[in-house]
């Protein structure tokens, strides 16, 4: 059986690793890389974030940030109208956003 964890943020795709066990909370099959150990048994990074006592690793941190992007993206009103005017005024001569 294959690991049922999805990797990636912009191009999500299933992990291709061989499952070594399952999440004690949601039941999905997991490979060793995506298994987080804790007091209530093995968990996927998503359940490890919501349950108490699980250690944080790179996968759980990525999952936490990913979840925040999947909710509707909201911006903050950072600047005043005066700032906006100064933005409009500034020259951007010689700047080509395609030239990378």
């Amino acid at each position, binding site marked *: 059986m294959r690991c049922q964890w999805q990797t990636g943020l912009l191009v999500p795709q299933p992990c291709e690793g061989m499952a070594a066990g399952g999440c004690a909370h949601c039941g999905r099959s997991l490979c060793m890389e995506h298994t987080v150990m804790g007091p209530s048994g093995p968990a996927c990074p998503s359940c490890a974030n919501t349950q108490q006592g699980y250690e944080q690793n790179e996968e759980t941190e*990525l999952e936490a940030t990913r979840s925040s992007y999947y909710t509707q993206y909201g911006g903050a009103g950072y600047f005043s109208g005066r700032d906006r005017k100064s933005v409009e005024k500034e020259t951007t001569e010689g700047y080509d956003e395609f030239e990378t």
Partner: protein
Amino acid sequence: MRLHDLSPAARQAAEMQAIRGEWEHAAFDQLLKELVTYATGMNNQLALLKRWMIAAIVVAVWCVIAGLKVIDNGEGAMGAAILVGGIAHLIVSVVFWRRPPKKALPKDALAMVQQLFRQVRQDLDAKVTVRVNVDLSGPTEAKRGERQELPARGFASRHQFVYADPWCQLRLQLRDGYTLTLRQLDQHVEVRRLKRKGTGYKTKTKYKKICRLTATIVPPGPVEWVGQPWVDPTWERLRVAKKKGLDVAVLDRWFVYKEKDAKPKQNPSGDEAVGMLYRLCSMRPVEAR
């Protein structure tokens, strides 16, 4: 972490204050990790040095005052020794204080690139390298534009200088063939006001940093964009531009930071950049998502 503790690639980047070329994902990740650690250490060191210098000047002034008081109390030799020591300490402290500070790498800027890369690394085509052109030297004299006169508005004169610093260019190839680019142009605006004060003049300088973050998504072939991402109408602009016969979606976002005494060092966070890329990716046709 000191300069000689860095790997050869990181040391070269720190010395040149630039990251250029094509990088394997693992090597780029390691390079960013080392440079962020180095920049954080360097910034902490400079902050500590500044605090130490202030303390040294305070102690030196205190010694001069104490020396004068001791002389007044009739202990001439002891007072003179404290006074001379205090003056010597003050001179040394001021000389150190006025020395041009060591240049530290911009911690916030490096952290943005690192955070962005960590977030999207799993989405990248493992066989394609990351193209990078990052200039970490900041707003140097070479980037300063010409002096621009401004309306005086009650002052003796007002003028400004604009430092244009297009410091960041990244090109990332996604697993599904789409290409993402991210560029940042910083404009440091330095406004100087000259005010008449009694018999002379007084200059006051204010600083503002305007960052323009531009994210683009380039399709692998002709495509019809379908999604309509959320865009902040005040600070963002979304457009579709033609580039080499392809429709390229471009999202711009502006950030403004202000300081009174020095050029602002803040930078948009990696989350902002990832959010922009994420919204651009939501415009892809459904089969590509």
